[in-house]
């Protein structure tokens, strides 16, 4: 069913709110503000009754596939279940109704929580200190690259290059470039890891850092990580870890043990805070000793009697956002880590890995698996290894919607032709995995026998396949109509 836009629901004379009367003596606007500042035009906002609004947004919500409604194996996004109790806790008035500029002695509970989250993340990763300020993973990457840049400027070393494997997320090169670094791509070897020869060739005294995602975007642990670490450190460069795939490592390995100097975490992936339809996330940065002085200000510290913000950090890169970070998100991550504890976190990674390997095993007979070896928390199939009836990976993804599954990440990583990147997470049951596998196996059959079903998919969603080319060509980025009088 087509849901009208809120502008089309508009009816002048209705309202969806009630506010109290003005209880101070009301003065004419012009007496308070000179006329030149006052708005001459209408606001152009619609008006609707409260029930109109409730139905409208409820119906919109029903047009979404979400974790709470469907299996959502979007690779590298770790779409795991988001516990409800964490939502309740984050919304307690003592967290949600607190102003960021209240004096520090009135916010000791929040400061303690932030301090503890830092310590928990340090223990999980082996980093020496963590900043919770970055608002998302890409923001954490940017913060880290700024820190590395500041470090070398401080040391008066000219290093202008960042090495990034060809399998990396697009944010890695974008964040490095944003920071003024030259990006040089490192090739992958035929096992999906970093090509050591290529790395050695490109590794010189101009390199500030190698950015690595571990496990990488193929879901594989970098076997040669200790060699890589040595090669990078021998040239005096830093080893950065993109923590997008940390869900595979909890309690199994510590990034510091394989030479990571600096990394970011995605609290909205590994630590189960909801993805919010595309944010808010949270992308804390952890650093080893050498880089700690460059972390953003303020840091949270524990004094003899209380917790406090420390702004007195002369080498810090400064602030990367206003206030202190996405605190509400951080609270949920804290709840998650405390709920699971040391025993639970390890089970998270164990079961994430088990689920991924099980699904991979079930699917590799029907789809080409370019890197045949045990995976970590995710794996990548090719949907276009051989062209069958001109079917593209996109068609497979759309057809999955008809079976009630959110498709995997597609066409990424770029090194696999028509990639289907599948991350089931530990919160899914064997029954769900079996149903998903059956659907994909069935679709593989349809590719040969009934390709039109894929080409015409999806059929079961609120709209049929949408024309993205038209959207980009004939840009319509806002409602252009006139509100009914």
């Amino acid at each position, binding site marked *: 069913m087509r849901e009208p*836009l*809120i502008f089309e629901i508009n009816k002048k004379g209705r*309202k969806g*709110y009630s506010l109290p009367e003005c209880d*101070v003596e009301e003065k004419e606007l012009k007496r308070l*503000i000179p006329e030149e*500042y*006052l708005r001459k035009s209408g606001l152009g906002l619609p*008006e609707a009754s409260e029930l109109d609004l409730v139905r409208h947004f409820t119906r*919109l*919500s029903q047009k*979404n596939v979400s*974790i709470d409604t469907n299996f959502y194996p979007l690779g590298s996004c770790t779409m795991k279940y988001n516990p409800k109790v964490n939502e309740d806790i984050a919304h307690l*008035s*003592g967290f949600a109704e*607190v*102003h960021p500029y209240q004096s520090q002695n*009135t916010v*000791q509970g*929040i400061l*303690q929580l932030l301090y503890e989250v830092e310590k928990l993340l340090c223990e999980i990763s082996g980093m020496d200190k963590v900043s919770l300020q970055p608002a*998302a993973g*890409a923001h954490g990457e940017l913060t880290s690259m700024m820190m590395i840049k500041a470090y070398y400027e401080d040391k008066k070393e000219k290093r202008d290059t960042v090495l990034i494997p060809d399998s990396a997320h697009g*944010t890695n090169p*974008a964040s*490095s*470039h944003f920071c*003024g670094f030259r990006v040089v791509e490192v090739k992958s070897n035929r096992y999906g890891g970093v090509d050591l020869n290529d790395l050695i060739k490109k590794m010189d005294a101009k390199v500030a850092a190698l950015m690595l995602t571990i496990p990488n975007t193929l879901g594989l642990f970098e076997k040669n*990580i200790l060699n890589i670490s040595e090669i990078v450190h021998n040239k005096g460069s830093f080893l950065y870890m993109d923590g997008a795939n940390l869900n595979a490592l909890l309690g*199994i*390995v510590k990034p510091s043990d*394989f030479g990571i100097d600096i990394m970011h975490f995605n609290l909205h992936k590994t630590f189960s805070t909801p993805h919010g339809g*595309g*944010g808010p996330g949270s992308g804390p940065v952890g650093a080893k000793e050498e880089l700690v002085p460059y972390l953003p200000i303020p840091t949270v510290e524990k004094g003899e009697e209380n917790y406090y913000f420390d702004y007195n950090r002369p080498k810090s*890169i400064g*602030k990367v956002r*206003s*206030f*202190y970070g*996405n605190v509400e998100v951080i*609270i949920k991550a804290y*709840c998650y880590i405390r709920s699971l504890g*040391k*025993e*639970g*976190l*390890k089970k998270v990674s164990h079961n994430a*890995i088990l*689920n991924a390997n099980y699904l991979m095993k079930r699917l590799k007979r029907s789809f080409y698996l370019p890197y045949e070896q045990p995976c970590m928390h995710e794996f990548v199939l090719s949907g276009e290894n051989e062209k069958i009836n001109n079917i593209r990976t996109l068609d497979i993804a759309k057809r999955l919607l008809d079976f009630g599954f959110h498709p995997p990440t597609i066409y990424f990583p770029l090194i696999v032709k028509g990639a289907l990147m599948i991350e089931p997470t*530990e919160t899914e049951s*064997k029954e769900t995995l079996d149903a998903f596998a059956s659907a994909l196996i069935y679709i593989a059959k349809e590719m040969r026998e009934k390709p039109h079903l894929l080409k015409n998919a999806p059929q079961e*969603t609120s*709209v049929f396949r949408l024309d*993205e080319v*038209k959207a*980009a060509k004939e*840009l*319509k*980025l*806002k409602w252009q109509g006139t509100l009914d009088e």
Partner: protein
Amino acid sequence: MGEKGGGALIPYIPNTKEDQKKMLKEIGVESIDDLFKDIPQNLQLKAELNLPSSLSEMELINWTKKLSQKNANLDEYVSFLGAGSYDHFIPAVVNHLSARSEFYTSYTPYQAEASQGNLQASYEYQSLISRLFRMDVCNASLYEGATALAEAVIMAHNINHRQKVLLTKTIHPEYRQVLATYIKKTLGLSIAEIDYENGITDLNKLRKEVDKNTSSVVIQSPNFFGCLEKVKQIEEITHKSGSLYIVSVDPISLGLLTPPGDYNADIAVGEGQVLGNQLNFGGPYLGIFTCKKEFIKKMPGRIVGETLDKEGKRGFVLTLQTREQHIRREKATSNICTNEALNALRATIYLATLGEKGIKEVANLCLQKSHYAWEKISQIPGFKPILGSPFFKEFSIKCPLPPHKINKLLWKNKIIGGFDLGKFYPELEDSLLICVTEKRTKEDIDRFISILGEMV
């Protein structure tokens, strides 16, 4: 009782021991550890992490409640604190509708057909904000107000390749700090800060600084002091040198004040927290980002566009993705990936709920009540209004006592006082920035004033 946290004993992990066995058998290995053969043996942790043990739901609630109770909150205290984070009223529908888990447990709408709810809501957000700001285009949100401003400055540089950025000192100090971090650590542009006079940008000083090398002139209005900048005069000065005009605005103020599109701003940004988002100790909020149509290809962040499905039915998709990092990698307009969709959804529901009349009403209540408070405080001997330019919902007062002492006394009376301006402006060390929103009743304000009166 089995081992705590064993197979299926964690509510978020459904695999039973039996399931695990079957799955391992299908995979063809003996144990889960056999799946780690790529991880060098000497790296695999032998001991458990040094973390606390797991907590049951009840234990977790009890513990976090204790932590939350150590924080004074605005349900118990009456607040006159603003300075970039504002205590506006949030109608119940905003909380209820944004708490629908179909919204908050989904992700970036990579598969448009499965995400029409989010996409249409984003499209409505872009439409509502474009109209409120009277700007051509709006993206689907950035992180928050400060980074939105930094992205605007970088975008302006990418448009005109000029090297100098002029900021006014009346912009939120933390926004200026973030901007300095972003620009120093990225593009190496030079920044000059323009002084203020009577709480607003000194136009003579601005005129002297603007030249052909000026990439952008950046202001905030209402500014950090709550004062209204002379936006039209600044526009003339800026465009005369061919520089780009960037403004940061309080969206609520646009219920009454001239919107940036009407004074020819090139890029207009703002902190969207005021639109239906809680204080949350500073985040998550949302960065509003709008600009003129001609600059759209340089815009950072996600943008939603309208299109048709193959049967001609209207639908919405992410568009202009060729600007973005997942396609362009290092050539992208920005590195941003995840934005603040849920906060933008709250802003959408808020704007739709308040509508044309409501936003005007909220803005008017802020204006009337803050001016009532200003007038009353001005009458208390010893308290002196400073920075005499017209203001919207915040104003500055010079105090007869150090601000922290005043705030301490207010605190004892369950009132959170104003912002101590000396923290960022040494020249204003005895002054408080006081914020009055529509949530403050006359009774609140009168009590606040009578306590201030008793201090002198």
